[in-house]
Each structure stands twice: as structure tokens, then as C-alpha cells.
């Protein structure tokens, strides 16, 4: 079926297919539409990986330019968006490498860590805990928390849970196996949950007196017991 992309089980084309065909025919306005549609998402992914705004802007530009130049190589057996994300992820990793003055940066970096693979803090969260913070405070907490993850976990979480790609699409985009994506996703989710518990736990009246200091919240020994015990 060459470059014609269909949604599985249907004879319906993905809306991007028609736009891609138009761009191939020399219609730059069609590419403008594709750029508008995805530029914010590509920027967000680049910012998550590079952790640097300037780099994220450069990656966004470079990824769209590269996709435009290489559009003939797009086979249409994946979605245009996942193909574009793959380009952006590679560009982001290259930028990260440059920032670290040549140090190797890959999807596999730091994924061997066992940290956070087993829950340790079982304190329940306050109802709607995000409402205890201003938008700016919440954004800071969420940034700080996700920045602590290794890049290989961060990108899987962002693509799968924030961007909404399927496990298979995430695997294809990152050049990973499906089990590798599943393993990283579980650990990313658990690590984020563990770290957010510091801020979102149900507060005792004493701890509530100083809400700006999440470390001040004490956890009872019962809440801190390791989670290896079978019940």
C-alpha cells in the first residue's frame, strides 16, 4: 500500500496522510498546518528531554526542518506524528550530549537504577492535593519531580502518559522493545508517585502549620515499612 496509511480495521485515512501527500506535491501551506498541529507537543517533549528552553526551541525547529527535508523517506506505515517524535527525540538526545560536552547520552542512561522500583511510602494523599498549591507552586513541584528521573524513564512517561501514545507507538518511536517500555513506564510512574507523596500526603494538623516544608511532614513507622512483605 506504499505511502497510504490507514487506521487498522477501517478504510479511513488518518487526516495527516492527505496533508503529507500535499506537502510532497509542493504545497508548503499543508506543511504549515502540520507544524501548527504538533509544534507545542514537540516543544514539550524536547523540553522534557533537554531540560533547557533554548535547546527545546532549537530542537523543535530542527526536527520540523529535518522532517520536511526527509518527507520522501516517510513510508506511511507509522503515524506522521510518531515519525516526527522519533526525529525530535534523537535531536534532543544530541543536544543533551553537546551540553554535557561529548558525554554519551542514550535512552539507556541510568535505567539500571533500582531506586523507586518498589514503593516505600504508603501515606495516602489529601483529596485533590494539587488544590493546596498555587498554579506556579504546582508547576514547580511537577517540574522538579520529573527532572529527577533518568532521561530514559522521563521520555517514556511523557510519550505514554502525557502525550497519550500507545505502548507499541512509544516502543517504535524510541527504538525500544515493548517489554522495555513497560518496565520503564512502571518504574517512572512509581518514582514520580513516591516523590510527589512528599508534597501531596494527607497532612496532620501539626504538619499543616508549615505547608511550605514538605520534608517537615513526619511519616509514621507503619507508613514507612518496605513493601516487600507478602500479605
Amino acid at each position, binding site marked *: 500500500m506504499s505511502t497510504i496509511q490507514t487506521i487498522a480495521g477501517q478504510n479511513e485515512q488518518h487526516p495527516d496522510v492527505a496533508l503529507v501527500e500535499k506537502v510532497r506535491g*509542493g504545497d508548503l501551506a499543508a506543511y504549515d498546518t502540520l507544524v501548527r498541529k504538533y*509544534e*507545542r507537543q514537540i516543544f514539550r517533549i524536547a523540553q522534557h528531554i533537554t531540560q533547557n528552553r533554548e535547546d527545546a526551541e532549537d530542537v523543535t525547529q530542527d526536527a520540523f526542518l529535518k522532517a*520536511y*527535508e526527509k518527507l520522501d523517506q516517510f513510508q506511511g506505515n507509522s503515524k506522521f506524528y510518531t515519525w516526527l517524535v522519533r526525529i525530535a527525540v534523537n535531536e534532543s538526545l544530541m543536544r543533551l550530549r553537546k551540553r554535557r560536552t561529548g558525554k554519551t547520552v542514550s535512552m539507556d542512561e541510568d535505567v539500571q537504577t533500582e531506586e523507586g522500583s518498589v514503593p516505600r511510602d504508603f501515606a*495516602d494523599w489529601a483529596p485533590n492535593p494539587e488544590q493546596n498549591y498555587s498554579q506556579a507552586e504546582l508547576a514547580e513541584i511537577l517540574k522538579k519531580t520529573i527532572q529527577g528521573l533518568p532521561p530514559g524513564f522521563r521520555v517514556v512517561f511523557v510519550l505514554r502518559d502525557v502525550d497519550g501514545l500507545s505502548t507499541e507507538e512509544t516502543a517504535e518511536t524510541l527504538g525500544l522493545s515493548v517489554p522495555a517500555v513497560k518496565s520503564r513506564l512502571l518504574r517512572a510512574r512509581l518514582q514520580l508517585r513516591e516523590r510527589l507523596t512528599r508534597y501531596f500526603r494527607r497532612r496532620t494538623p501539626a504538619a499543616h502549620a508549615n505547608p511550605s516544608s514538605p520534608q517537615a511532614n513526619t511519616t509514621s513507622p507503619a507508613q514507612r515499612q518496605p513493601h516487600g512483605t507478602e*500479605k
Partner: protein
Amino acid sequence: MTCTEFLKILDDVIDESIAAETRVEIETHLKKCGHCEVVLNTTRKTIEIYRCHEIYELPVEVNERLHASIMERCRRVR
């Protein structure tokens, strides 16, 4: 079902891709294990919070500058 077994399938529980017979085992385990219930609920909430809050905002003027720059570069390589 043990806590370790539950943890192994936590992602499938969150993504709701669990067989009906396993679902009964999970419900039975959650009824007696408060820790696993907390882990499930707070992990779900973690995902929801990240999905609902845009932490890297792209201001309109930066977006417009970026967009114009992308299209200008594409125009040049035609």
C-alpha cells in the same frame, strides 16, 4: 494474590487491560491491603496530574516566533 504480584501488573490495572478473572483476584487483594490500594490510587492520580497540567508553557509570542522561523527555514530549502 501477593503485593509483589499486584505490583507486577500495576500498569495493566491502571491501563485497564486486565482479564476478567484476574480482576476478581485484584479486587479481593485490594480489599485487604491498604498499602496496595494507596499505591494504585496515588499512581493513577500522579498520571492525571501530569496529564492535566502543562508544565512547560509555550507563550503565544514565542510560539509565533518559533513557527515563523520553522516555516522560513523550510521555504529556504525548497
